[in-house]
Structure formats: structure tokens, C-alpha cells
């Protein structure tokens, strides 16, 4: 069994309301969260606004300390380590923000933004740093002459590439991406998603991918962690969550996510020439040519009206949930 690169155990974060009126009022941003992330895998954190997913991201990268519980990086509890050791550990978990523009310092050139973590955390000399910056830019599909430009000269997609380059430059094991696509245009989202997947393959990265978009989550993740108001709702392999979700909340999310896949499938079916041909001379079910569930039998044979516990239905394949 492989050791998880990142794990949390019983992570809890509470905020105490200030002011005399709420003296003993405690809100839970995160309540008893536990999960494990194996190398090269992607864990998706799904939830709506206010579910605590961004708070969770902050705990994972060490920009915020949990109230209780453990954060384990490479199997070591970081809060048992000395401050400098802990800092070093957290360099293996890097973050990509939702809004790429606001995560880049508007007044410093891309090159110096990318060099900054190397200056602070490594003993590289200037030439080595320049080379590392060059490599990181190439890796995310930018050119090294981009290093001398300012953030506002790039499009949103390119800015997010820069943010990813910044996360990569310390050669981390885990990248925590907090809604990295939601500020981007549709056609650019696909570019960034593909880039993330390519990088994962090349560098054996692990991702904690925070998103509200279930389509994207299903596309990229291996495990899915569904949260609501700081609590775990459902956590499992992507197949389990999407095919046999056991939690009503997950089901509700799934059913309310708009998708045109069903429409397209249905249209493709009824538009296919053989289906049309058959439908014309069919003496089967009259609805068959418009039915998303229609099969050969429906075209050949008129279904009989059946009585299913008092309800009458004329169909070969009555829907039963």
C-alpha cells in the first residue's frame, strides 16, 4: 500500500463570534474532516458556497491553523514539528487560487513573482533561478520572454498558467487548486484543465481540486469529497459518487447540474437514419420515435397496458425508481 502524500484527520476549524452578544457562540467552518490523498491522484472537494471548502484549502496549505485535528504531509503530523520544519513541509503543498489576476502582484514582473519562492526557500544562485523560471514557464505553455511582463498584460487563462507555474516552481507533491477554472471562459477552462492533467501525468502530482462544477469534477478526479456546511456528506471513489451516490445532497447536486448530454443522446438516437426508417413503418409504440428509452422492441411490438400496483401504463419498460 502506498503512503498518502497528504491526509487530514478530524480537522476542525471554529470561529468564535466577537462582541458581547455572542460570547459563547461558536461557528464551525470545518467539522471533523478526514481524508487521504495518494500520490498521483486527484481528490475533488465539492460543495456550494459556505460549505467550508475554501477554509479547508487554507488549512491544507498552512495559511491558517486548524482548531483541532491533524494535517499529515508524507505521513508526518505537521503541527508536531518545529516551526521551521513545518514551513519546509508545507512547501510540498502549493496553492492555485480562484482568481488568477488577484493572486499575482500587479506591480511586479512575472519573472520576479516566480523567482520569489526560490529566493526565499532555496540556495540557488541567480542563474539557476532564471533557468528554473524558464522551465516552469515552458512547462505551463508560456515563453520565457513572458517573464519580463506584468500580470495585467496577460489574458485570464495565461494568468492562471502563471499561477500554476508559481505553484510548480518549488517542485511540490501536492497542488491545492481552489476553483481554478471558475473565473475563466469556457474555451479557456478546457485548456487549463488539460494542462493540469498533463502536468499530473508528467510530474506525478497529486491534486486537491476544489470545485462546484460536477462535470469538471467527474472529468478530473479519482476520489470525491462532498461537503455541506463544514461537514462531510459523502466521500468515495468517483464511480461510487457519480453512479451510486447514497446521500440525498449529492443526488440533489447531481440532478440540478445542467447538462445537455441526455438531450444530445436522445437527439442522436431519433435522428439516426435507421431509427427514422424503422419508425416510419413501425407498428410498435407510437411514442417510440420520440422516446429517449426506445429500443428495437418498441418499434416492433405494441406494448400492452399493464397494471402496476393500481397504476396503468402502456410501455415495455415502465420507469421504476
Amino acid at each position: 500500500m502506498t503512503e498518502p502524500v497528504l491526509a487530514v484527520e478530524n480537522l476542525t476549524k471554529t470561529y468564535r463570534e466577537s462582541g458581547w452578544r455572542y460570547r459563547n457562540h461558536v461557528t464551525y467552518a470545518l467539522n471533523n474532516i478526514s481524508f487521504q490523498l495518494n500520490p498521483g491522484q486527484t481528490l475533488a472537494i465539492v460543495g456550494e458556497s459556505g460549505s467550508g471548502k475554501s477554509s479547508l484549502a487554507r488549512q491544507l496549505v498552512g495559511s491558517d491553523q486548524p482548531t483541532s485535528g491533524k494535517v499529515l504531509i508524507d505521513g508526518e503530523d505537521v503541527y508536531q514539528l518545529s516551526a521551521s520544519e513545518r514551513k519546509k513541509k508545507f512547501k510540498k503543498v502549493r496553492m492555485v487560487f480562484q482568481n488568477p489576476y488577484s493572486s499575482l502582484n500587479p506591480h511586479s514582473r512575472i519573472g520576479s513573482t516566480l523567482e520569489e519562492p526560490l529566493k526565499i526557500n532555496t540556495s540557488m544562485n541567480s542563474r539557476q533561478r532564471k533557468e528554473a523560471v524558464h522551465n516552469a514557464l515552458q512547462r505551463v505553455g508560456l515563453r520565457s520572454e513572458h517573464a519580463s511582463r506584468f500580470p495585467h498584460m496577460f489574458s485570464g487563462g495565461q494568468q492562471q498558467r502563471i499561477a500554476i507555474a508559481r505553484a510548480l516552481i518549488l517542485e511540490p507533491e501536492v497542488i491545492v487548486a481552489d476553483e481554478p477554472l471558475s473565473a475563466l471562459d469556457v474555451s479557456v477552462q478546457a485548456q487549463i484543465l488539460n494542462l493540469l492533467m498533463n502536468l499530473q501525468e508528467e510530474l506525478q502530482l497529486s491534486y486537491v481540486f476544489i470545485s462546484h462544477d460536477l462535470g469538471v469534477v467527474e472529468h478530473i478526479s479519482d476520489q470525491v469529497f462532498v461537503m455541506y456546511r463544514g461537514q462531510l456528506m459523502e466521500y468515495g471513489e468517483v464511480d461510487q459518487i457519480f453512479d451510486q451516490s447514497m446521500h440525498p445532497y449529492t443526488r440533489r447536486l447531481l440532478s440540478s447540474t445542467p447538462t445537455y448530454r441526455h438531450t444530445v443522446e436522445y437527439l442522436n438516437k431519433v435522428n439516426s437514419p435507421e431509427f427514422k426508417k424503422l419508425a416510419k413503418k413501425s407498428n410498435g409504440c407510437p411514442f417510440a420515435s420520440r422516446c429517449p428509452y426506445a429500443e428495437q422492441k418498441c418499434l416492433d411490438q405494441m406494448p400492452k397496458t399493464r397494471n402496476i400496483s393500481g397504476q396503468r401504463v402502456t410501455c415495455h419498460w415502465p420507469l421504476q425508481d
Partner: protein
Amino acid sequence: MSEVKIYKDTPIPGRWQQFWQRYRRHKGAMLGLMFLLVILMFALFSPLLAPHDPTEQFSQFLRYPPAWTEKGINEFLLGTDDLGRDLFSRIVYGSRLSLGLSAAVVLIAALFGILLGAIAGLSKGIIEFAIMRIMDIILAVPSLLLAIVIIAIIGPGLPNAIYAVAIVLIPHFVRIVRATIKEEMNKDYVIAAKLDGANGARLFTHSILPNILPPLIVQVSLAFSTAIVDIAALGFLGLGAQPPNPEWGTILSQSRDFIQLAPWTVTIPGLAILITVLSINLVGDGLRDALDPMESRG
């Protein structure tokens, strides 16, 4: 990513170049800048530009009106005062004092203001509370009144006037620096820099300072004009520069008694103060407009 280039990459102007392009579009600000440059020239090259020594008394030319009036003579372009001193030379030398003193005041105020503002902005709790409440107290008293009170304590004179006006100006800097730092600290790129491992000092110099610079520059220009007015006011009240120093406020106060006999001795230093403050304010306006879009995406 190989890109087919259809357009040549036009070289993109740097930050200051863009700033200058925007500033130039502001006509009033350009006018202000021109005036300010002229005044600056006066200040820098006063010995060359002034025809006479500012304290030299020409006893046969008392209260001569400016050269363009009937009685005026060309030797004294702006006329002479009651002691026969050349007003033009006094104004030119006075610009040195006015600008120089104000610069000193702004420098001191900005230095302490930024320092205190940074401490307040980066700390929480009692330190921040203490600093901000002291600043509130200073702000609660009208600025000139406070300066007078300070001078009453430490005594009149030029250096003391500088300290007094500087102290009055400090709270403005503290407030603006603290507010911007608080705002900046919550921004993603500062959090990102923290995650890069930057400590407090590095965070301040690399991430925050460049971003509070625009409001700070505007504040400096505002403080500059306040400083000129306040110093002149103190001079006028006899609490700042002492005669025969050709400080504009002092000239004004000395000529006050002759306002009916020699109105130009009052009007001209007054105009000098007015034009200087006006042009600094115009420049400040232009700066604010030109620096502001930096925050948003160009």
C-alpha cells in the same frame, strides 16, 4: 505552445511610461506641473535669478510700485517694500524657503507616518489601538491650532515650525498607510506571497509597498500644499520664520500695515502662495487620476 504570430508584438510600455501617458492627457495637471517647475527653478537658482539680495535695503526706493505701473521702475520688477527691499528678489528667495521647508515637513511626516502606519497595519490589538487613537486625537484638533499649540510649547522659530506642521500631518499618512495595508493583506497575492514563505518585512517591501505607493504619492502632494499653507500661516502669525527671512507668510505679515499705501506688497506674496498651492493641487489631482487605473486591469 507554438503560436502563429499574425501581429508583431508591440513593445508594451512600462509602468511609469503608462502613467506618464495618462498624466499627459490631464490638461490642468500639465499646467500645474509647468507652474511647479517654474517655481522649482526659482528655488533652485535663486541667486542667479534674483537681481538683488533679498535683505538689501535701497533706502531711496521705499515702497516703489511694480514696474508695469506709472511710478514703477524696471530695476524693481515687482516693486519694493517699506524698507526698500526688492520684492521680486524676496519672492524668489522665499520660494526656496517655502518649498524647502515644506519638503522637509513632508519628508518627516511621511517617514514617521509610513512607519507608524505600517506598524499599525501589520499588528493587531493594543499596539494598533494605541497608535490609531493617538492619531484620532491629533486629527480632532484643527491642524493650524494644533501647530500653534505645539509651537507655544516648544517655542517659535523655523525648525520648531517644521516639527509642528509635520506632527500635524503625520496622522493622514498613518491612516492611509494602515487602511491600504489592511486592504492589501487580504488580497490573494499577499496570501500567495505568504505561502511562498515571505516573512513580515519581505512581505511589506516586496508585496505591499509597491501597491500602496499610488495613494501615498497622492497623499504626499496633498500634504505638500497643506505644509506650504501652514508654514506661511505660522510665518504670518510670527511663529515660524522670523523677519528678515523672506518667507512668504512673513513677508505678508510685515506688509500688512501698509496694505493701503502699498497694496502690491501684500498681493504679490499672497499670489505666490496661491499659485504654488494651486499648481501643487492640480498636480495632485492629475497624479490621482493617472495612478488610479493601476489598480484595475489596464
